[in-house]
């Protein structure tokens, strides 16, 4: 047996597993989305692409085109994610910068604190906030004492004192930030940590002001980290349904993930759910491919 074949044989079981449970699963989504449904609205997949029925997909596209409910949900999802991303970067960049440059002797401890939320169950982190933000929770009381609830009401971001969990878009967005910002900070930290300090010193020696050195050296060099981290956070945010369910549970904050979840897992319109899943996956494909390419080039650099 030549050693070339040894390696291929070793890869075989994993390849078969992913083909059956990953690729074939995606094909099942296509077959359902372009299939039909029976009189109980259970999906009847069409496995042969030549038989595909585009009726359900067209109905969804027509809804989106004419400004129907799905368009509303897609736009809301985009707006929520965009705002959450901007807030996440505003929080994450300074934190990552501090950890990479200024944490000094406490760097290990700071890193540990930044990594910890990764391994605390997402739902437990949400549960913590549900306890804190319930009408008599400690968080609600603190926010009331400091007057933040009145500021939010004044800004139109909260409808009533103590009503943080009553379907407030602002609560959902802040919960998304809380949930995903740790996943942004670590790639940012890695890219800031990689920047050669001597480049900044060179900029200073050549007369750049500290501010100029930051905006013309550090910031541009950290752009790959900003992009990779943003994509890494945007992908799960676009597919989230549990965060709005937990901190709002109101149709007013339905995201595309909620719509898909209601149609597929909970509901009986799996065909339309499959169509929406495909639209979401296609919309995110650009981000996914971008992220894979950027990490692969980083891998190649590491191997070179």
């Amino acid at each position: 047996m030549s050693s070339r074949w040894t390696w291929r044989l070793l890869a075989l079981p994993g390849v078969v597993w992913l083909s059956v449970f990953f690729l074939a699963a995606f094909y099942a989504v296509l077959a359902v989305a372009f299939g039909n449904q029976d009189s109980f609205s259970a999906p009847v997949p069409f496995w042969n692409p030549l038989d595909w029925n585009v009726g359900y997909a067209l109905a969804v596209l027509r809804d989106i085109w004419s400004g129907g409910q799905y368009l509303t949900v897609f736009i809301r999802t985009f707006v929520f994610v965009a705002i959450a991303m901007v807030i996440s970067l505003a929080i994450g960049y300074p934190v990552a910068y501090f950890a990479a440059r200024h944490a000094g002797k406490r760097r290990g401890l700071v890193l540990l604190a930044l990594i910890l939320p990764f391994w605390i169950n997402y739902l437990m982190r949400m549960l913590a906030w549900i306890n804190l933000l319930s009408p008599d929770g400690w968080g609600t009381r603190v926010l009331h004492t400091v007057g933040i609830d009145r500021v939010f009401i004044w800004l139109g971001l909260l409808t009533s004192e103590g009503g943080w969990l009553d379907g407030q878009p602002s609560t959902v967005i802040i919960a998304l930030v809380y949930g995903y910002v740790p996943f942004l900070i670590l790639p940012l930290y890695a890219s800031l940590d990689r920047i050669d300090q001597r480049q900044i010193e060179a900029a200073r020696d050549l007369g750049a002001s500290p501010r100029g050195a930051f905006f013309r050296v550090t910031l541009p060099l950290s752009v790959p980290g900003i992009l990779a981290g943003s994509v890494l956070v945007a992908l799960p945010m676009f597919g989230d349904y549990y965060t709005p369910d937990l901190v709002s549970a109101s149709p007013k904050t339905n995201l595309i993930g909620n719509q898909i979840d209601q149609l597929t897992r909970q509901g009986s319109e799996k065909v339309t759910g499959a169509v929406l899943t495909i639209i979401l996956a296609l919309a995110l494909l650009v981000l996914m491919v971008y992220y894979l390419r950027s990490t692969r080039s980083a891998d190649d650099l590491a191997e070179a």
Partner: protein
Amino acid sequence: MIAWLRNPWGRPRALAFVTGAYIIWSIVPVGIAILFAFNAGRSRTTWQGFSFRWFTGSTGSVFHDPALQSALKHTLLLAAITVVIAVPLGVTLALGLQRWRGRGSGSVNTMMLLPLVTPEIVMGVALLLLFLKVFPSIGLGTKAQAIGQVTFTLSYVVVIVRGRLVSIGREYEEAAADLGAPPHDQILRVLLPLLAPAIVASAAVVFALSIDDFVVTQYLSGDASTTTVPMLLYATARGAPSPALNAIATIALLITLATLALAFFVYKRFAGGGGDAAVAAIMEV
């Protein structure tokens, strides 16, 4: 922040403040949730004294309430099954992909990485439809959940093991080959012992990922006996739950952290290269 822009080598008070505030904001709420697991009363918002009643009490505690007990057992069972399947599959796939250069390896590599970036709901829907329409004989429930978890944790094993393979280099294998070892001896007697720390680390990561997984596990769940701890948190957090919910979440958290800490020390002790390499291996993805 302005002061820091003026002198980035000075002491960045504003940055330190932002970082400190962020760390407090990210960790203290969870700390309070853990604290209320030990509340003596039913409330999750008013402190009524310290007790273990929600862990061990005779009614409604994690160790006595059938639903809570079942969720904890099922979570651990799934994690064990997933580790047992995902680790060998991932290790062999990593070995194969690392040394197999040629036609097909690029597309296999892409297919292996895709689960890492696929939003979980997309994967959940895909697997749900697969088990409903293609494998109705497997159906929804424990088997489907385990298969789903293996599918998305496999890539983590590959990435961790491959990182170690890259750092080992090819010298040891080549030396073994020069001394006449056939390919299977190169793998079993040279590569696997060198990979052991990475294998342990990846097993721990898979175990932790499995315990924490929510979306895929929920989509593939069958009856109530296939409820896991995260599913229980989702289902009851907004209802009228008791601090027992905080208690079960605390137990799951302790198991996750203990597993990862163990892996960290194994990796650090046996793989050499200091703590940074171990953090990198565990944090890789």
